[in-house]
């Protein structure tokens, strides 16, 4: 299968899951559909980061409001407006990263990225639709995520709705070579 090319730049090839026999060997994984564990860990990392940033913004705005009004203000999660603000913040966080680069910080660390189902860039529209459809997968008692485990293209419900897929943007073989280079350089030292 030839990889689609977008604006002269190679786009990840959308391939099938490699045979289990090859799974442990270092190999070219770029463009293969990303699995559940990688996606789940990346999502967990993004949750920690986005919540941490939100808490930080909340604390900063509490301090700024205290300075401006002269009275001690402490906004906590119990406040009425904080919850909708939190959801808006989460929406902005994921929508921004998915629509612009297809990679949240968690996805960058785990070496995965969101692409269109045709292998092209996600784009703003698909990025926004994916972000809006994402809570659906959660609200259906997590059943929307089962597609990652059971579908051959490892697409969750929100991927199907938005016409996206998540692929590996990281090459295990390159990582293996880097590791070899490091080993040989440390041996030389």
């Amino acid at each position, binding site marked *: 299968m030839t990889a689609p090319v977008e604006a002269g730049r190679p786009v990840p090839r959308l391939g099938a899951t490699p045979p289990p026999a090859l799974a442990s060997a270092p190999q070219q994984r770029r463009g293969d559909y990303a699995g559940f564990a*990688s996606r789940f860990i990346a999502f967990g990392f993004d949750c920690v980061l986005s919540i941490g940033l939100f808490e930080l913004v909340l604390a900063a705005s509490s301090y700024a409001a205290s300075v401006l009004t002269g009275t001690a203000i402490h906004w906590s999660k119990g406040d009425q407006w904080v919850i909708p603000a939190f959801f808006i913040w989460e929406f902005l966080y994921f929508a921004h990263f998915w629509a612009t680069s297809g990679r949240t910080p968690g996805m960058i660390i785990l070496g995965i990225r969101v692409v269109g189902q045709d292998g092209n860039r996600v784009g703003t529209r698909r990025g926004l639709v994916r972000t809006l459809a994402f809570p659906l997968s959660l609200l259906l008692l997590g059943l929307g995520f089962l597609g990652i485990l*059971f579908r051959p293209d490892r697409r969750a419900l929100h991927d199907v709705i938005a016409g996206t897929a998540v692929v*590996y943007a990281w090459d295990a073989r390159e990582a293996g070579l*880097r590791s070899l280079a490091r080993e040989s350089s440390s041996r030389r030292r």
Partner: protein
Amino acid sequence: MAQGVAQLVIDPVVESLDLNALIARVDVNQVVDRVDMNAVLDRVDLNGVLDRVDMNGVLDRVDLNPVLDRVDLNPVLDHLDMNKLLANVDINELLGRIDIETLVKDTDIGELLASSSRTVASEAVDLGRSHAVSMDDTLARWVSRLRRRRNAPTVPTDSPTAQEQS
């Protein structure tokens, strides 16, 4: 007196000789064959000759490009024993002559060193990713095993029950 007589005789004889015609009749190759070149060369002081030659002047007048074009270097290189050659090279001395600063400045080696330090920083990330990918594959294997078990026919197709059903 004899010398005077000889001079009187020889001079007119030499003058009357057609030297060109004489040389034309000489087989030079035969003469050269008779000459013991080694004995001649033994008597020549080659170092003295070479000392008097301006080699730079000679080389300036030689166009080496057409000469090199005609040289097939492959057989020359085939004859070279590189190991022997390299054994004579003092690598440390050679490296000592290299201006490392200029080398790093003028080449991509600096970039290479910087990227290698970046890769050191990414070692943990690579390791984490490898673990995540192997977990992905383990999960995929479990799921495919589960699906195979589910899709497997409960009654073998060649059993009597299956034949009755068909």
